């Protein structure tokens, strides 16, 4: 039975696409047949972050408009088995998305025996974002530790409770909080909201905390999801997140300021967080 997961946030630039790429890659690494769909029609990014931008021939909108088959449009990842990408169209806008078309694509993926269908939502709460969440079984709400991001996430949680197919059938979309770009040192100085505050404000279970990390930016620019570089702390964090998502219990990490060893005290800021 396929699971449809929307990665959403309301606010832009908090790490939805990064999270979609890494969670999809992580699930595929565990052997699950996974596809990531880019719903950001007109502002295509997922293909860049996953390093397949030069292999895009047909896109999501072509499939919705029946100009191409799913088989033609879906890109198979070269590094990880079981991982597929359906890129967004760069030349169209979100009006090209409609419930019947999106529903048909999701049904086709279900019929093709995919375990996970990851819907990378655009920012905002308009058509693109609503289409990305409509068919979701579960939602990963990506939030940065700052008030505007928390408020936008709260808004999106309200929409997840109101504007999805699950709600129409009397069920609820299961929601998970993913706190990204978390810097415990800045939390300690009072420059950022702490995870406990965010959890209290949003009131949904914490899937994980991704530490603020230069490796994430580098990985995005290289088109290699950071999860494929296990030396990076953010990769460790995403591996934890994926493991928890499939039901494994793992303690939360990256919540507190790492203890500084003798050498880092001598030579300045630590470069990696203690695991």
């Amino acid at each position, binding site marked *: 039975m396929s699971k449809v997961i929307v990665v959403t946030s309301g606010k832009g630039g908090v790490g939805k696409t990064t999270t979609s790429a890494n969670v999809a890659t992580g699930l595929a690494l565990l052997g699950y047949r996974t596809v990531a769909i880019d719903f950001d029609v007109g502002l295509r990014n997922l293909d860049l972050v996953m390093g397949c931008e030069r292999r895009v021939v047909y896109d999501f909108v072509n499939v919705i408009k029946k100009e191409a088959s799913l088989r033609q449009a879906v890109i198979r990842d070269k590094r990880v088995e079981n991982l597929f990408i359906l890129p967004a169209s760069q030349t169209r806008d979100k009006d090209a998305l409609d419930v019947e078309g999106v529903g048909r694509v999701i049904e086709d993926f279900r019929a093709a025996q995919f375990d996970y269908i990851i819907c990378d939502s655009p920012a905002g709460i308009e058509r693109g974002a609503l289409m990305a969440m409509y068919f979701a079984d579960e939602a990963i709400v990506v939030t940065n530790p700052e008030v505007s991001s928390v*408020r936008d996430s*709260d*808004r999106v*949680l*309200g929409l997840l409770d109101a504007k999805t197919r699950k709600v129409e059938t009397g069920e609820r979309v299961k929601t998970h909080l993913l706190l990204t770009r978390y810097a415990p040192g800045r939390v300690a100085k009072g420059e950022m909201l702490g995870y406990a505050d965010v959890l209290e404000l949003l*009131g949904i279970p914490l899937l994980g905390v991704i530490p603020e990390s230069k490796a994430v930016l580098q990985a995005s620019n290289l088109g290699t999801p950071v999860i494929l570089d296990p030396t990076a702390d953010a990769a460790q964090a995403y591996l934890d997140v994926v493991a928890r998502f499939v039901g494994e219990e793992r303690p939360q990490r990256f919540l507190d300021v790492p203890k500084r060893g003798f050498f880092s005290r001598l030579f300045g800021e630590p470069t990696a967080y203690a695991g």
Partner: protein
Amino acid sequence: MASPERDPQKAFTLKGTSTPLTVLCLRSSDLERIERQLATTVGQTPSFFQHAPLVLDLEGAAGVELQGLVALLRRHKLAPVALRNPPKALREQAISLGLALLLPGNGRAGKPREAKVETPSPPVVTSATFGVTVTQPVRSGQVVYAPQGDLVVLAPVSSGAEVVADGNVHVYAPLRGRALAGVHDRTEARIFCSSLEAEFLSIAGHYLMADEIPEAMRGKAVLVCVEEDRLVVRRLGPL
């Protein structure tokens, strides 16, 4: 409270109920003045007043001409159903006009021997409003409105959310958004919450912005009510 009877022989059952009603407190016995104010008030929110059951309180206008008043109210599509604390002199006349008598110290309308007088005023008994109860968090951007009754919220109300009721607003969790009670000028409405972190509080048009809420009340269990035309925030429970 009469329990519902399954006996097919019985044509009806009696049920006790408590229904919110609007009370018209007269401060003048001048029918012309009353009519002028009525025309503007009803004109502002005609749908709310459409055939609304009304209890009359004549304490401030003992000399009013009752028959004329009732006719006036009915002309404005209001449904006077009862007289609260009626002066002895007006009781006979009220009964003859089809009004029930609500006497002090008695939760129900009238004494048992007057009970038969109540029966011609069914609106009071049948239109029970239980208000609205919400068990899920009210998220930013959501609005929950309880028409004609109380709103009870058993989960947090987020910043940017709005909870609105014609009656009282109860929030048994942190209230971080906006709360509006008694929105149709019901100054007796109140707001209750177990942790006051609100952005805005309003009762019957009186309001407090976030900055005007006393700092000492932040995060506390409080009730908010109207006293002398302004909003007052008070601690709830043992101090």
